[in-house]
């Protein structure tokens, strides 16, 4: 246990330089973009001399390291600047979208694992059987189907033709937050995008789990378990599955990245106001403060995802802890 704490603390310390580098990169990227906060926002009749004074006053003429320090301190305080397009604080805009993406992500993850674990285990245990062939067949179809086509087909069938699900938005207009109807409407809105996404993304995990199980089945320690007199079900439950789920557990951390980052195609197609949708929208509208903030958050999400992955792996795999 002691090893694990040491490992976790050391692993968490690594994210400090990672975060610094990320913020610096994002900042420099933002600096490289043409124009600044005053460009296009000001009355064209304004005296250029006065604009220069304004720039001086707002600190836009400061050297880059001072600007970076200003930006990063306010970002840490939660102030990401103003959205040019929506005329509201970028942080407020992003927060709403992030909550939506988060719930869509959670629903997708649940569906992904609900499908992947039984399918992967069945497929791996009874490999080369008819059942395995059907499951593998499904995964190949999943690999070959682009999510934007599949999402459109799902939307057309279940949204428009059958009318089982709403076709856009994240909640029915006019429902009060906190009420039961509000929650039901929220779930109803994210179900179809989550199912569409889950059905496709699960194939990776199914295939991964299947090959892990087939691989673990042939390990020597499985023969040892059998030679001890363990029954087939014990061999599978105690030895094969646990060892095969290990890399899946590590993957889980990276999935969390998706919870913050959202998904560009699916959110766009289902008109679901999440982070992916916001990103595309603000790129198209050249809403720089929002783009910068979103990119910063995406970077943050992947750093955190990797951190969580490593910590999960150290929890389940004793071999990691001493390194």
């Amino acid at each position, binding site marked *: 246990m002691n090893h694990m704490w040491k490992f976790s603390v050391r692993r968490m310390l690594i994210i400090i330089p990672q975060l610094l580098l990320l913020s610096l990169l994002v900042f420099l990227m933002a600096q490289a973009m043409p124009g600044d906060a005053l460009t296009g926002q000001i009355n064209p009749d304004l005296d250029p001399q006065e604009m220069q004074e304004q720039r001086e006053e707002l600190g836009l003429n400061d050297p880059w390291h001072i600007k970076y320090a200003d930006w990063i301190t306010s970002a840490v305080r939660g102030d990401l600047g103003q959205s040019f397009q929506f005329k509201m604080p970028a942080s407020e805009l992003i927060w709403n979208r992030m909550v939506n993406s988060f719930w869509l992500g959670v629903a997708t993850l649940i569906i992904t694992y609900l499908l992947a674990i039984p399918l992967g285990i069945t497929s791996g245990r009874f490999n080369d059987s008819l059942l395995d062939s059907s499951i593998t067949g499904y995964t190949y179809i999943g690999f070959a189907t682009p999510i934007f086509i599949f999402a459109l087909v799902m939307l057309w069938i279940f949204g428009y033709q059958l009318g089982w699900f709403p076709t856009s938005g994240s909640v029915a207009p006019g429902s009060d937050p906190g009420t039961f109807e509000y929650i039901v409407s929220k779930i109803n809105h994210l179900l179809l995008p989550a199912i569409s996404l889950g059905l496709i993304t699960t194939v990776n995990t199914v295939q991964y789990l299947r090959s892990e199980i087939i691989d673990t089945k042939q390990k020597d320690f499985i023969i*040892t378990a*059998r*030679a*001890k*007199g363990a029954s087939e079900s014990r061999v599978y439950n105690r030895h094969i599955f646990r060892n095969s789920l*290990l890399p899946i557990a590590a993957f889980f951390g990276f999935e969390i990245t998706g919870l913050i980052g959202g998904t560009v195609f699916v959110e766009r197609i289902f008109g679901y106001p999440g982070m992916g949708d916001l990103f595309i929208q603000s790129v198209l509208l050249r809403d720089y403060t929002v783009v910068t903030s979103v990119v910063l958050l995406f970077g943050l999400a992947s750093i955190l995802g990797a951190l969580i992955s490593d910590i999960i792996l150290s929890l389940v795999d*004793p071999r990691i802890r001493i390194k």
Partner: protein
Amino acid sequence: MNEKLLEIKNLKTSFRIEDQYYAAVDDVSLTVNENEVLAIVGESGCGKSALAFSLMRLHNRAKIEGDILFKGDDVTNYSAGQVNKLRGNEMSMIFQDPLTALNPLMKIGDQIGEVLLLHKGKFSNLNRKQKAISLLDKVGIARPEHVYEQFPHELSGGMRQRVVIAIAIANDPEVLIADEPTTALDATIQSQILDLLNELKENMNAGIILITHDLGVVAEMADRVAVMYAGQIVEVADVHALFGMPQHPYTRSLLSSVPNAESVDSKLHVIQGIVPSLKNLTREGCRFRSRIPWIDESVHEKSPELHEISPNHFVRCTCYKNFYFPDEKKEDKRHGIS
């Protein structure tokens, strides 16, 4: 008189390669008695491990013919449940590679505890822990309480092999199969493990089947030796008879391939050719004849049988009578290690 523990009769283990079955173990008959170490020797690929796995019914997809009588009961007819009761309990196995034979995610204590739990379910958890620790102690592990809580990757190869042995002897098996127990270890550890096995042999009533290609190990431990070539037994004899008066050309070649520290300058003897693969094996006639091409074909039997040439000394094929090494004169010059 020692009692027969295990009687193998005409065992044939075949594997399927491209819709056809090929026998890796072909018509093997052997007995293992109480308090006896039977060594099975042969080159890699001769079927010795396949034979060991057949005895424990550990093959996944193999066709097993013949009988394996464990105290008179035919193991080949056992149901899955009966096999599970046998394995790790009355019959157990020590594996070749201790680095891969243990589950990397389970504590040593739990891995030993599992075999106790499976067969001695009535144990309380505390008793099981005590028993596991005493087993670790028995196989010569220092600080057993500490090792009980450790994971395999924290132990050295030699210690892991001791753990594998502890698992195998946990329930005092009557038949213990050691499948090349020292092959994956370095020389100093090998001798420590051999000492341990010798010590256990003295204290157990088990019949031990020792599978190895290391003739030094055989000399140190075995009471009787069966030599296997291409899936068949070619010679069975008491260990002194086998080393003193080896008969079969293969046994003699094998013994003369052992490097000799006393004659450093003499060239090391090698057996010509390679062990034929399962698919390329000629199953008619003497299987060793392709590797002793200088011997006249006519001396081999058409369908070689095991001949009892002296009490309890069996040799397959009559070609042994006319065998000589190419660098020897045709005169009958016996080769061996005393």
